[in-house]
């Protein structure tokens, strides 16, 4: 998965990269994302949505290509099988076999939750905006277990379509994003995406398990763990079409 589609994942699971010389903050973020975008990827992951009185988990497959195409499809549990999301450039569609309809996600639904998780549709679809809609600066830099970790503060531009006052990313020198925190305009922490487990997979060091938590409701969270990942695979353009969203050919 290297697409803006799974932005949070992307940011967190940055592939290992050779140690860099001095870089500025924007470059650190851009490198991380660019590296992620690569040419293509295939991921199998499990998403656990936790609430105080229930919990459910979904296993999904995701394909990404270039920086603006991605497709996610649920394979488990059975009742959700076939539910999918397609992102192509700036548009997002969802498909549910139960109603047998492809629905284009309108702007009014972008702020709503994606598949019932703590991620919004916008988190999923517009992830790569992080590079150019913000002003980045390194606010802290420290050595942890021999790896340099940069704390990067990203402040959205005046006209950016971003509600946050600022975001703080902890990015390791090897491009693994350890934490992505969202602050409101009063400086209060609202939600946080944390990498709970970092490891090697598909030939790269990535965040294998990440959790999104809303600070006001710590007992509600969504966790995504990567089960399998392959990079730089050959994907046809026909994968990212509405007809493939509707009628899987894999």
């Amino acid at each position, binding site marked *: 998965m290297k697409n803006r589609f799974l932005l949070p994942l992307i940011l967190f699971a940055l592939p290992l990269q050779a140690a860099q010389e001095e870089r500025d903050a924007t470059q650190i973020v851009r490198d991380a994302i660019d590296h992620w975008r690569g040419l293509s990827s295939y991921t199998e992951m499990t998403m656990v949505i936790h609430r105080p009185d229930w919990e459910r988990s979904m296993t999904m497959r995701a394909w990404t290509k270039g920086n603006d195409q991605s497709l996610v499809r649920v394979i488990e549990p059975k009742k959700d099988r076939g539910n999918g999301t397609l992102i192509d450039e*700036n*548009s997002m569609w969802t498909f549910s076999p139960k109603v047998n309809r492809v629905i*284009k996600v*309108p*702007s*009014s639904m*972008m*702020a709503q939750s994606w598949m019932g998780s703590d991620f919004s549709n916008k988190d999923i679809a517009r992830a790569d905006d992080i590079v150019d809609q913000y002003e980045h600066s390194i606010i802290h830099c420290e050595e942890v277990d021999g790896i340099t970790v940069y704390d990067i503060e990203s402040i*959205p*531009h*005046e*006209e*950016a*379509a*971003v*509600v*946050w*006052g600022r975001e703080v990313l902890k990015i390791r020198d090897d491009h693994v994003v350890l934490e992505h925190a*969202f602050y*409101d*305009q009063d400086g209060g922490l*609202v939600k946080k995406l944390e990498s709970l487990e970092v490891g090697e997979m598909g030939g790269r060091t990535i965040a294998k398990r990440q959790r999104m938590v809303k600070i006001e409701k710590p007992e509600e969270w969504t966790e995504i763990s990567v089960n399998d990942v392959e990079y730089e695979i050959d994907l046809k353009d026909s994968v990212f079409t509405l007809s493939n969203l509707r009628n899987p050919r894999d």
Partner: protein
Amino acid sequence: MRLLPVLVRLAWRYLWRNHRRTIIMLSAISVGVWAMIFMTALTRGMVDQMIKDGVSVLPGHVQVHHPLFLDDPSVSNRITIGDAELARAFDTAGFKAWASRVKVPAVIASERESRGVTLLGIDPAAEREFSFVSYDDVEGRFLEGADDNGIVIGRELASKLETEVGKRVVLMSQDPENEIADRGFRVVGLFKANMPAFEESYVFIGKQAAQKMLRIGDTTTEIVFLADDYRNIEPTFKQVSARVDSSLEVSRWYEVDTYLGTMLKVMDGFVLIWVIVIFLALSFGLVNTLVMAVFERVREIGLMLALGMKPASILGQIIIESMLLLAVGLAIGDLLAWATIQPLQGGIDISAVAEGMEMMGASSVLYPKLYLSDMIRANVVVLILGFLASLSPAWRASRYEPVEAITKVG
């Protein structure tokens, strides 16, 4: 006909022969008439206010849209004529006020909440006449021009979004290609409206900022015109229709908001029904009084008939009696109503029940509105119905057999 003055004089004297009964009847009529007019004025005032508020939110008495816009208010159904051309067509035409604006549904999001709103991209100078928002009664400031980059939202919305002046919010809508159009705006002001519902559902941004965000060049979705009075919009309507392309739809405010339009029509019927209902109650008293008056003077009537007065004159006399009674009662009632409404013109504070009123779309101060036409209508209805009600006792009186009547005991 020379009999008439005599009959009137006779009737007037009879009326005051039993002055206690007459005064009781008079007070019943006056109170009834007062109630008719006063209640009518109250409801009129309420509906007027609702319409005024409603029209001011619509806003605009005559509106021009793309024919599909009212059913599907999206930028795809916009008016494709640019602002410059519109200004050429309308600026010199002598309209009281006109404005073109971008009005589309949008979603506004803060860090914690997102809500559906109606986005109004306006030129504040042109909209001053239309706006339900007083530009001066704004916490912070109102938009300063069509190119203002800020956003003004309602107080109620601000508290729902947990945002405030100086913070940024994100507006999301769709461009003509159905792609997502979004942008961040800094809240520069919080407006106050009569009704919380307005504060929650409208947000204002500069027209040019809206056009840029929605990628629609210098086009807009709605052109509005103000007529002198919301009841008299036909001249403006004709003038506008003559000037716009036939591919656009020109509508009157009551066609855009059918609820308000219907309300206005229902009101006229309601006033009439109200007057009749009160009169029905009154008429029992009236008929009773007249019947009593007739019974009381059976012998007298018999004597008059015996002396040669025609039955028609007797009939006329009783009817004149009832008309005099009603006329005096109406005069007192009208005066009473006028005297009570006059000091209340400044508005009656009904904020105690404001919540319920808001559900109907009325605000919390009631301004009674006395229309001459309502007053005349009440008076005419009372006189006509009073005439009909007095026919029966009068007819009875005129049919007495003189001999029988004179000799009647009691």
